């Protein structure tokens, strides 16, 4: 992997700050097999690296409070915008394996030594798979509410389930058919923040407005989220949650799992009881009964303290 020139246009400056938020200290591009990945660092360039991965439909800027806390604990925190997210390239194909490959490219560009992996939601699951594929590249794994578990299926008859699957498939294919023409809806930063509140109902408007100033671009007719309009929340495929859980039992590095227990739209609804049977020996499970899925945003100090203590 080669590194490209530092992106000049990748330093958005939100009009208003947010308490405790700091933009990254350094930015660079990583070439992940031809895909340009926007990569960010907080903390001293001389400090030991730590890899930090965001969740689906997020971007590295959503770590602007959490990452500086880890950096203050003595780490060089390296994060990136997943392909199609934030300032990274919009590409033709998105897949789980491609996200894992991009993560490895960012890691390769940072160090060849084993480092701690910390990931939220999808980022936690992606880094879990990277640990499983490359145990020699990780020293620790912290998964922030990114452990999949079975969702209760609605109690419906078989023919109704068939109809639901057919509708889901048609909807996905229809969305693919429109993807070439799709564009994010423009608005003011406040409007974008209010729209995002539908997915982040527990997060304050001031925070959502702050991250809109990073995750959106200003066009002539207003602000638009930068995320590729071809991406769609949810989806379907052959993957089973229990395959991930079963593999978790064999994780080869010290493991800290953190769950936010208040259910919400973007969360995975995973309970401690669903996770415990699959924890590898010596693993730690910490829960926040008064936090939702974005536990590192709702409780940045507490979560950072847990992570720093775990890495000590």
């Amino acid at each position: 992997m080669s590194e490209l020139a530092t992106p000049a246009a990748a330093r958005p400056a939100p009009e208003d700050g947010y308490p405790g938020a700091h933009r990254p200290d350094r930015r660079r591009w990583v070439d992940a097999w031809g895909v340009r990945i926007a990569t960010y660092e907080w903390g001293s360039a001389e400090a030991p690296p730590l890899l930090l991965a965001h969740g689906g439909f997020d971007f590295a800027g959503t770590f602007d409070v959490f990452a500086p806390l880890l950096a203050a604990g003595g780490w060089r925190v390296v994060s990136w915008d997943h392909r199609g997210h934030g300032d990274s390239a919009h590409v033709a194909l998105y897949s789980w394996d491609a996200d894992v490959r991009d993560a490895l490219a960012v890691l390769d560009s940072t160090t060849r030594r084993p480092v701690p992996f910390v990931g939220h939601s999808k980022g936690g699951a992606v880094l879990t798979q990277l640990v499983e594929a490359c145990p020699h590249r990780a020293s620790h794994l912290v998964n922030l509410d990114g452990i999949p578990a079975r969702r209760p299926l609605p109690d419906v008859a078989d023919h109704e389930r068939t109809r639901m699957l057919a509708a889901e498939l048609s909807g996905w294919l229809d969305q693919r058919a429109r993807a070439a023409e799709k564009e994010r809806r423009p608005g003011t930063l406040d409007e974008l923040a209010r729209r995002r509140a539908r997915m982040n109902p527990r997060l304050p408007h001031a925070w959502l407005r702050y991250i809109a100033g990073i995750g959106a671009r200003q066009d002539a007719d207003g602000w638009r989220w930068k995320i590729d309009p071809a991406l769609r929340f949810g989806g379907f495929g052959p993957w089973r949650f229990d395959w991930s859980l079963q593999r978790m039992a064999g994780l080869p590095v010290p493991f800290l799992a953190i769950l936010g227990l208040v259910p919400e739209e973007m969360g995975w609804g995973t309970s401690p009881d669903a996770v415990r049977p699959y924890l590898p020996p010596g693993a730690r499970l910490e829960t926040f009964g008064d936090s939702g899925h974005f536990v590192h945003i709702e409780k940045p100090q507490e979560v950072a303290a847990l992570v720093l203590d775990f890495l000590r």
Partner: protein
Amino acid sequence: MSHVLLRHSKVKLALHQLAPGPGRALLLLHGLGERTPARLPEELASWPGPVFGLDFTGHGLSDVPTGGGYTAEILMADADTALRHLGEATLVGRGLGAYVALLLAGARAERVRGAVLRDGPGLAGGGPRPPSPTVVAVDRAAVAPPDPFALAELSRDVRPPDYATSFARLAVQLSGRAPALSIAAVERPPWLQAVAEEPGVEELRLAEALAGYARA
């Protein structure tokens, strides 16, 4: 052989016409690493209508995207792009194309007028359960097409039998024709064996299957 370029999101797909004529189209879906044949294969010459072949993303004259990320479901959407262009079609899929034909026959049961699943490269995929995780990387200097990422990723994608049969059941229940799916293949990966055992799916020789769909 002529072709048109169809747009699927950021990818231009080549749809080749192998035989002219009115009536319902036969749509060929090639195997992994293949492309639409240059001429109409002899075994398909009995089809009374026009015959088309789609080059999947990363194959033949279709675009080769950057950085991989292939799934069988995305190729289903490739095939749906061709199906929307044609209106309706009978599908003949080889190898990987057979699996994609199954997915599309379930997802677009009202427009797919039967599908024939044949032997060919990429029929098995990665098997019924995920293999040990690895980071799939390729030699960027490798000649493409076919995209080396397609070869690597679509020979590892997991194909659980009950996932495959959910598409077969959609095809059978929603298409209203019998057989909704015809299997003209010798190789029997677990997904195909499970589909073969579903009601409404028949094992037929290619010529028999085509003759039946041509009459329907």
